[in-house]
């Protein structure tokens, strides 16, 4: 046996268990979810093929459309706000030396915390007086009590705030790495040409940061589209209330599958969810690249 052949055999031996794993735990379930999506199944009786019925039901399901709208609200508020905040912090933190590491650590630590624990901390902050910190502070400075999580209008931003807060540190660290990667000679050249701060930011910093920005826009968008832990733990009974006003798609998938045991409908929702993720990231990659 030639040595090449021997090495190839060894490679396949190393890959045997992983190939079985990826096929059984990733690929097969992905295909299976299409099968389940076209059936009606409560796990007790055998699945029944129903064609496109689950997808048709979705079109006329008001809760689905609310969850759909909320998912995009999380995305279109969360991603720009968090990226802008992160960029501003990173831009200035990059220029500051004193206590740099400590400040960076303070911004980064929330990113590593358990989402569930943080959701409960924030939930406590939002409680009506005399319990909640925010209302106590508002009352102390003479403002009225706010309903926060109890209001159909304020609840979604109130749930979004901790999600933005928790993701900020990750974005800041990546922005700072991106800023550090810009060759100093560009800045030196700009200085010699007498370019002002804004000019440098617009003509050098932002264009050079493009790969980082593209990456962060896609990653953070996917993160906000997949929001679940925060909403589940910040709303009563994990239902995404009040009146579904904070319910995202992932929570609706969870409820359909594991509270209502409508596996077919839940699987159909996951496929729609998958298509949304795919479309959003493809559109973003395309837009960012063509500019």
């Amino acid at each position: 046996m030639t040595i090449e052949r021997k090495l190839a055999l060894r490679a396949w031996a190393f890959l045997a268990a992983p190939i079985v794993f990826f096929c059984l735990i990733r690929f097969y379930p992905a295909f299976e979810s299409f099968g389940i999506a076209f059936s009606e199944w409560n796990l007790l009786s055998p699945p029944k093929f129903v064609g496109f019925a689950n997808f048709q039901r979705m079109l006329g399901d008001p809760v689905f459309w609310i969850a759909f709208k909320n998912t995009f609200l999380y995305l279109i508020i969360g991603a720009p706000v968090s990226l802008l905040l992160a960029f501003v912090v990173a831009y200035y933190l990059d220029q500051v030396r004193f206590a740099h590491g400590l400040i960076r650590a303070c911004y980064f630590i929330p990113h590593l915390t358990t989402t569930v624990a943080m959701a409960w901390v924030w939930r406590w902050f939002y409680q009506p007086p005399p319990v909640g910190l925010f209302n106590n502070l508002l009352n102390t400075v003479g403002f009225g009590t706010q309903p926060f999580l109890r209001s159909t209008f304020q609840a979604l931003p109130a749930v979004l705030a901790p999600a933005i807060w928790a993701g900020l540190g990750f974005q800041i660290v990546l922005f700072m790495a991106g800023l550090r990667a810009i060759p100093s000679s560009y800045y030196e050249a700009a200085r010699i040409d007498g370019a002002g701060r804004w000019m440098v930011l617009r003509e050098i910093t932002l264009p050079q940061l493009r790969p980082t920005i593209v990456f962060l826009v896609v990653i953070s968008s996917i993160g906000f589209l997949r929001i679940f832990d925060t909403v589940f733990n910040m709303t009563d009974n994990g239902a995404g209330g009040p009146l579904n006003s904070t319910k995202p798609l992932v929570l609706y998938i969870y409820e359909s599958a594991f509270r209502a045991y409508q596996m077919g409908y839940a699987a159909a929702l996951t496929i729609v969810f998958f298509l949304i993720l795919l479309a959003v990231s493809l559109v973003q990659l395309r837009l960012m690249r063509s500019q």
Partner: protein
Amino acid sequence: MSAIPFDDGQSWRTRLAASPGWIVIWTLLVIGAIVMMTPLLYMIATSLKQPHEVFEVNIIPHEPTFENYTYIFQNSPFGRWFFNSFVTSTIVTLSVLFFDSLIGYTLAKFEFRGRNIVFIAILTTLMIPTEMLVVPWYVMAKNFGWLNSYWGIMFPGLMTGFGVFLMRQFFMGVPNDYIDAARIDGLGEFAIFCKVALPLVTPALSALAIFTFLGNWTAFLWPLIVTSDRALYTLPVGLASFSSENLTAWELVMAGATIATLPTLIVFIIFQRYIIRGVVLAGLKG
């Protein structure tokens, strides 16, 4: 805590440090940092408060007490949940480290037909969101009797496409000469992987280990789905159930939240540099 060293020629960027505006910027950044830490500080402070003090805005407890902690360890399975999280996160991390590096090594250092197909297939799994797989996984776990078991919690995460990608990138940077030399010395292929290749990628391994452990320690959706037996909850799932039952005893909820969060904080304080570097490596390469 050391800052990233400034390389030469950064003078323009640090010019701000010399201008009078820097103190304003610095103060704003520090205020921002304090605001970022406020939820955590309040969480820890409140967990040490007595019930009558909880609603006071002051952060430092008048008479700090550990009673909240003793209470929740005695009256709910927090110890057990902690143990469950620890065992499952550790085993998953070891499995990921072993398999992902083995796969990454094989894809980087062996020449064989089909290598690219395997690599692309594994990368494709990164496009499949977990949410799409949970329903089939649940059905699988139910059919095989894996619900409410450590195996049920662990099986989806034993290997990850992300880890394979990361490790392959790093093994690509390992010179072939080392491997060829070991082969000439008569070392077996598996021994070469363990004794020659792995020690050369320890930075990547430590980053992967920390991410995988933290990711599994804080995972919520899948453990929530696969466990219904209270004794088998992981810490986040247990905390969620505990908190909703003790909705009015916020000092207890905060003690529970602190228990779930402190390990990650401690890991961060110890491995700060690796974690931040790891985020950058994984982020820029992923």
